[in-house]
């Protein structure tokens, strides 16, 4: 499949230049969205997919949301305050109606929180500190969290609110249980408070949304209908855009961007995502497949630095990423709280120094190791790993590159069967560096360090993360997190590469869209040409 989806379109630019004037077949107030994949379900709590949740955010809303600067702003809640270290009080917006006309009240918030935190809910992890909720009156709710947990607002941006009466009437108060084979009404029906309503849905073919005229917020969009069509082959999607059959695609293939830009009426919005791609090391006592015997060279910071210095990041950026990625020395993107500019500076590219470091560590002749990469998760991932493999070979190392789809590689990562691996982290949905610190950098203790695949451990880093998790003062907490990130950088625990590129393409019918670095489509902010 992969070779197919990566197929480029030679000659497309020429074709486009010869193209006949487009027949505008869409009505001016319709947005035809050619998506790179389908949403999994109409139920936002059904599958751990950021794409599904962000698309369903057009229909359902949370208590709070990100504004067009990626700052948290009120949505279904108008304000909130701390009652005690473990209780947040939310004042709800009055006069909001669900699409079926039912009023939005505190009961709906409680029902939704109960549903998402159900033991069977796959999205329970999105609300890690949740302890319970209590209705104070119809428009006030107290949410209990682990004491001093600082990130509840961030978490709540992704907890979309259902109507309680609707859930009860349709026997959908609990999430769908795949294990027990029980289907859910909410999988195929939707009833939110958001700017768009679902009109119809044919999985893998078409989902139609219609503007909600009763929306509580003043719309900035001028769309009447959104026709959402998944087109999984990028070449087909590009052709559909060029021939005027779609107006918007949120995943334009990098290799087609120059051609798209040359086509009349087509705009390309390229930027950098929040996702940082980096390499990680197995830190067990010995390596999985290496000629180093009982030793693990990666436990020596000099060796890790040698691998870092061997990477010619500029070449990688220019050739593999087509000049569209953002080179970084940081584990988090600039937009992620916790980032400080000092983090961004890379250790310089210096193959001679790298060789010297290897020699100092006692590996003058280099050594072999297995280098595990997926081939379908990050932008141009396989090419990145191939390029870096050859850069490492140039300093005398013998990496054995092993690429396969993520479903296969994840099993290897989780069982520690890799020597060097790849990971990308966007800090979604939290949009805070606490996410990468607790899930990746922290040692595997309790619920922390789920992605600590290589068994790295630094007592100081752990301690900084633990203190941050209980620090309510935002500035102090971010200072702790920055310090932890800085420590990881000094240790050369990971080899950061870049923030990966994202590219959206717009057809002639679209005047403007808002593209933020979380790479989510927000069509309630989209303006069409009329």
């Amino acid at each position, binding site marked *: 499949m992969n070779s*197919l989806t990566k197929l480029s379109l030679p000659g497309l630019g020429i074709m*486009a230049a010869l193209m006949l004037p487009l027949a505008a077949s869409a009505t001016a107030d319709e947005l035809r969205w050619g998506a790179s994949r389908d949403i999994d379900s109409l139920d936002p709590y059904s599958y751990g997919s950021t794409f599904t949740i962000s698309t369903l955010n057009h229909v359902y809303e949370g208590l709070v949301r990100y504004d067009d600067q990626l700052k948290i702003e009120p949505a279904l809640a108008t304000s909130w305050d701390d009652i005690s270290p473990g209780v947040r009080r939310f004042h709800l917006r009055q006069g909001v109606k669900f699409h079926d006309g039912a009023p939005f009240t505190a009961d709906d918030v409680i029902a939704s929180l109960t549903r998402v935190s159900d033991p069977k809910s796959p999205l329970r992890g999105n609300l890690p500190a949740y302890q319970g909720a209590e209705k104070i009156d119809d428009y006030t709710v107290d949410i209990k969290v682990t004491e001093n947990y600082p990130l509840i607002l961030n978490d709540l941006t992704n907890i979309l609110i259902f109507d309680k009466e609707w859930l009860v009437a349709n026997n959908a108060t609990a999430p769908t249980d795949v294990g027990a084979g029980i289907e859910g009404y909410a999988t195929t029906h939707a009833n939110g408070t958001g700017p768009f309503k679902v009109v119809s849905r044919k999985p893998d*073919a078409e989902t139609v949304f219609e503007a909600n005229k009763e929306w509580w917020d003043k719309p900035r969009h001028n769309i009447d209908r959104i026709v959402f069509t998944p087109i999984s082959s990028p070449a087909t999607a590009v052709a559909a855009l060029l021939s005027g059959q779609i107006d918007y695609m949120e995943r334009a293939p990098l290799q087609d961007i120059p051609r798209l830009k040359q086509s009349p009426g087509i705009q390309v919005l390229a930027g950098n995502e929040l996702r940082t791609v980096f390499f990680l090391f197995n830190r067990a006592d010995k390596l999985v497949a290496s000629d180093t015997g009982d030793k693990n060279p990666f436990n020596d910071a000099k060796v890790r630095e040698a691998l870092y210095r061997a990477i010619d990041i500029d070449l990688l950026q220019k050739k593999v990423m087509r000049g569209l990625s953002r080179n970084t020395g940081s584990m988090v993107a600039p937009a992620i709280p916790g980032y400080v500019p000092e983090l961004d500076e890379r250790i310089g590219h210096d193959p001679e120094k790298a060789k010297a470091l290897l020699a100092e560590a006692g590996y003058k002749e280099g050594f072999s190791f297995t280098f595990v990469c997926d081939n379908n998760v990050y932008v141009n991932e396989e090419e990145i790993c191939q390029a870096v493999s050859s850069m490492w070979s140039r300093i005398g190392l013998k990496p054995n590159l092993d690429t396969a789809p993520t479903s296969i590689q994840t099993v290897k990562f989780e069982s520690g069967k890799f020597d060097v691996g790849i990971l990308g982290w*966007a800090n979604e*949905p939290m949009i805070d560096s606490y996410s990468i610190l607790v899930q990746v950098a922290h040692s595997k203790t309790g619920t922390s360090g789920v992605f600590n695949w290589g068994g790295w451990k630094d007592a100081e880093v752990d301690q900084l993360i633990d203190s941050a998790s209980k620090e309510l003062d935002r500035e102090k907490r971010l200072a702790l997190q920055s310090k932890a990130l800085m420590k990881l950088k000094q240790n050369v625990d990971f080899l950061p590469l870049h923030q990966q590129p994202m590219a959206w393409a717009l057809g002639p019918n679209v005047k403007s869209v808002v593209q933020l670095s979380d790479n989510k489509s927000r069509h309630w902010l989209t303006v069409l040409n009329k």
Partner: protein
Amino acid sequence: MISMVLRRIGNAVAVMVAVAFVAFMIFQFLGDPVQLMLNEQASQAERDALRIRLGLDQNFVMQFMLFITRALHGDFGISYRNQQDVMSLIAERFPATLELVLVSTIIALSIGIPLGVYAAIRKGSPIARLLTMFSMIGVSIPSFVIGILLILIFAVQLNWLPAFGRGDVVHFGSWTTGLLTPSGRSALVMPALSLALFQISFIMRLVTAEMLEVLRTDYVKFARARGLPNRLVHFRHALRNCLMPVVTMTGMMIGDLIAFALVTETVFQWPGMGQLFVQAVMFIDMPVMAAYLMIVSAMFVTINTIVDLIYLWVDPRLRQAGAARGYHAH
């Protein structure tokens, strides 16, 4: 006849159980669906709990037994990804695939057979050689390349046909068809053509080869000697005797195409079963993959049986042999 059908059904069940067993063995190497089902934020405990609820902590023999037990009750589970009943998911998409496959088969037969006959009776002529060359290209080029080329020409450059999708469909109960709407018909053209191209070439080459064989036989010579017109000789006497392998291969190919139209379906975003299967593999949606493989194997077995029965009908010799000692297919 009845004993043959019964034996066939017995075989079919055995084949399907074997397919399911192999499928479950392969599933062990596909990776871990839990990783995809949960969000990055999920804790290890949540991951383990889901794995247990899905029965993925069991070894594959246990998973297989559970699947068989449930399947015998007609329960194939619900999709990990779409959270919908697997059988209804497949049933929803089956009409799209069948429509695509049947239309492309009709195109293939109505173009492939006449061309094949022509290439045989005008053997050596420039046009026949050209046809043979094109048929060579037709069997060699992968259908997704054809698909992309068609899209570039008819969707991007000429803007005549839609690049993706199925257009508007008409519902008849649970069945859907795009044949009754203009947009449905125009959406069908390119996928059907790109799927048919291999078949056209293949049928043409098959017919040509068979015709050349038959044209050398004595009875054709006698027919000519009797002064029958060429048209009658070619189409009534010669072609009819070529059709057996064509019937077999077309039957087999329909099965093939239904099962493996997935590349074409992916290129054109055709909402059929192949598309569903590709998505299922990507998301390691085991219930969908298992049910799909069961259906496909059931279909193959059925088609094989039907082809055998058509054989009996087309070739009287087999009927007698079948009556005498119980016909057994290759």
